[in-house]
């Protein structure tokens, strides 16, 4: 049975509109790509074609290249992203609801 917690802080959701895999890569990702390209060069067999990283312009392009290179060096890392860790809220004492009117029209016992 999951534990219940007393102090819980609600965390707002990120809007779906935040997602943009067509965003141009930042200097940070550009350098990450360059670092992986150095490793790609070091792993290449003679005559093996290398990725043309000048064509990597967006975060989607970058993620595809990074996946390919990371899988080559770290095949163990294929696990899917973990869903959020959701603790259980304590159950609130149910508020007394006004009794619904009897549909049957029966009279209350006194």
């Amino acid at each position, binding site marked *: 049975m999951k*534990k219940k*917690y*007393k*102090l*819980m*802080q*609600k*965390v*707002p*959701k*990120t*809007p*779906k509109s*935040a*997602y*943009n*895999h067509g*965003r141009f*890569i*930042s*200097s*940070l*990702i550009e*350098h*990450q790509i*360059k*670092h*992986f390209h*150095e*490793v790609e060069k*070091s*792993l290449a067999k003679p005559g093996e074609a290398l990725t043309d990283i000048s064509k990597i312009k967006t*975060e*989607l392009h*970058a*993620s*595809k290249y*990074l*996946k390919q*290179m*990371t*899988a080559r*060096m*770290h095949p*163990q*890392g*294929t*696990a*899917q*992203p*973990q869903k*959020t*860790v*959701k*603790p259980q*809220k304590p159950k609130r004492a149910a508020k007394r609801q006004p009794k619904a009117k009897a549909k049957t029209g029966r009279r209350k016992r006194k």
Partner: protein
Amino acid sequence: MAPTGLDKLKHIVVLMMENRSFDHMLGGLSLVMEKGKKKYPKINGLTGNESNPDMNGTIVKVQPNAKFQGQLDHDPDHHFPGVDLQIFGTTQQGAGRVANMQGFIKSYATQDTSIDQSHGIMAYFPPENLPVLTRLATEYAVFNGWFSSIPGPTICNRAFAHYGTSYGNVDMNLFFVQDPIVSIYDRMIQGGHTAKIYYYDQQSSTMEIVNLLKRQPQIFGSYSQFVADCNGNTLPDYCFIEPCYNDHPGPGGGQILASDQHPDHNVKEGERFIANTYNAIRTNQELWETTAMLVVYDEHGGIYDHVVPPNCDPNFPDGRSAAGDKTGTGVAFNFDRLGVRVPAILISPYIPRGTVIPGTEDPNGVIYEHACIPGTVTNFFLKNFENRTAREKNSKNFLTPLTDTLRPDDDCWVFDL
């Protein structure tokens, strides 16, 4: 005798986020009032009067109008020359200049931003807009004086977190480890301990020295493995967590958002990532009571902070120098001063609520930087370890906020995601 919190400690977890300054994320806490008094008087945040001149000479004050996304879509400069301008307010080099934190708008204005856009570099978040970081900073220990290790960009700063040095680099270029100084992961494994770097997923991968991934894939894991290790009580003695660095399609047609908070990624997603990582530890009672988690940012990302970065102790040097052509300013850098201040929060149930570790504002304050990460981890798990820089050996212990008293479970928050 060590406090109980240290005696019980089995795991140290470091989560390093991207490119936000202390004042931008936490500076607003100093302006929170309660019953006519400052609610958090010990936090060295903003007064609301801090300012920078813009390109027209207009004085622009800090404003509580930081946006989650879209405000810093021109990634603010945080390479060495840019940060030098931000700190000194001028591009002129040489003796006699004084660090005054007056060049942030000037720096941002050089990036084809309009006058209005350039003012965005002075924006900070009202605490209520960052419920996760605010909650953690006010519930556990916040460091007033944690600075990035170098007034420069990501890769060289992150290197300090892994090696205690950047081997003379002040830029983003790939560098190679130079013996005899090895990574904290190598040290831990050689010493019979366990250590791991958890990157988010293969599409985001690692920002940590790619050579390490090539040479030692066994020290890497994915974020899903981190959560599984928390659930299964198999977390290593030391681990370092990387957020997601890019937006990419998820499994089954889903969407994975970048959670690193690097401009212009949505800050809310980073909040959720911090909360999720905290929850993974917090919701396992055995792990919670034996773990200290540090949330820290690699560097300020070109965003305003009011505290002048201090000099490094000349008695304990890094021992390296970057030539003028490497720094981009024409002047060599001897690793003798720190970069801009960043948010840093230490979390443990052995830390009293509202702990603030004083920094440069206090004569008895303590200066922290990223070399403190391998420094503290090495000293805690391995005791003596010779092959590291004098700077790292002399770095301050970030576990000092842990006390003898375990807070009751009902006194520690959990995030509802």
